């Protein structure tokens, strides 16, 4: 399975808010604070647990920013791995029902 075939969802154990065209996110588990740039914010906003990452990259990232799918995939993996490490984003091979987002 490709990384871009996976599903991503926001954890419910976070605080987040849009600040201009960026997002601020804090993990309530370890209080780590993140500021996401506009590209990261697009992925974050689209991380609903039911849309495959490949579609998010194609329809949101590549459509709105001047970047190839390949490059977007590489950047997204690094970004998602980092947030997943802090429990902020959940990553799964299967769609993530909202009740499981915790």
């Amino acid at each position, binding site marked *: 399975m490709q990384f871009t075939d996976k599903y991503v969802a926001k954890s*419910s*154990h*976070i*605080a*987040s*808010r*849009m*600040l*201009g065209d*960026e997002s*601020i996110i*804090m993990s*309530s588990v370890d*209080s780590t*604070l*993140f*500021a996401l740039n506009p590209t990261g914010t697009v992925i974050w906003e689209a991380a609903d647990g039911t849309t495959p990452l490949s579609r998010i990259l194609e329809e949101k990232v590549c459509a709105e920013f001047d970047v190839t799918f390949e490059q977007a995939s590489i950047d997204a993996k690094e970004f998602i791995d980092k947030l997943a490490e802090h429990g902020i984003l959940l990553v799964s091979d299967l769609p993530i029902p909202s009740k499981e987002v915790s």
Partner: protein
Amino acid sequence: MSLLEEMNGKATALGIPLSSQLDITWRCNERCVHCYLDHDGKGEMSIAEIKDVIRQLAESGTFFLSISGGEPLLRRDCFEILEYARSLRFNVKLKTNAVMIGPKEAQRLRELGIEQIQISVYSHRAEIHDAITKLPGSLKRTLNAIRLLRAEGLKVSITHVMMQQNASDGMAVRQLAQDLGVAFVIDPTITPKLNGDRSIVTLGLIGSALKEVFQTEEFVGNVEEYCAPVSTVDEDVLNSSSCSAGHTLVYVSPFGDVYPCVQFPMPCGNLREQTFREIWRGSAALTELRSIQVRDLPTCSHCDHVSYCSRCPGLAYMEGDMRGPSSADCKKSEARTGIRSAGQRHKVGYC
């Protein structure tokens, strides 16, 4: 520059109330001798009104939301309010005396992902703490609650308000906080009552007692650095505003009144009559406050302490002029450095 400072800078530029305090009630089960509130609950907002305020704060960009009071847990719907705030992804801090927190409440607060519980502890001695809160047994109940909250893995911060009644207890409370594994913050300022009554201000530390606090490394960190006078004033200081109240910080009372800060009772509007956005963007009082730079302060801009003074415009407002000095902060600057402030000299006719 830290990420938090960057966020604050961006929020200031965009006019976003990044931090809000919402008092959901002024009723309280304690009667602290230094409290600045009256405890009348008549006319406080309903749960529907409070949820609407919280929704509006989210839409306006608030990220840090402090739910406070009075004692917020006196409202039976307090957990419903907290749950709603968390569903809108606020970073929520709860300010409480904790005496109503048992195992179930602690567990629920953990499940909701409350960022921090802030609790006042006035002394390690029950006879002193309980005499200040006027609630017998309150220290024991508060400390039991802190242990329960810690057992759930929640972050707790003890705020130690310093006054004449507990002047010698700071170090012991700090040790208590360490033993409990919680943060410790001192607050040496007694705020006048919001109705203008200044009688409780006399409870605060003054003179040598205040100086001793600022000479204690455990309270202020590097004493030499903290107490060193800084005479150079750069343009950045003069062009800045002296605090975030009304810029990135806002306070909402249980009755829907909007103020720049809980310590700044300048009426800006009421949420039963206007939307939050209308008040935040359109209030003449807020517009005036935001226009004030340090260079516009007739006394303080020429003060030796201007580059590091913790001048509170709300306390100055309560003394009659939000552009004037705050005598509490003048005393603190003098206690830190041994140098009288321009505000103090002005009052005795030195200039």
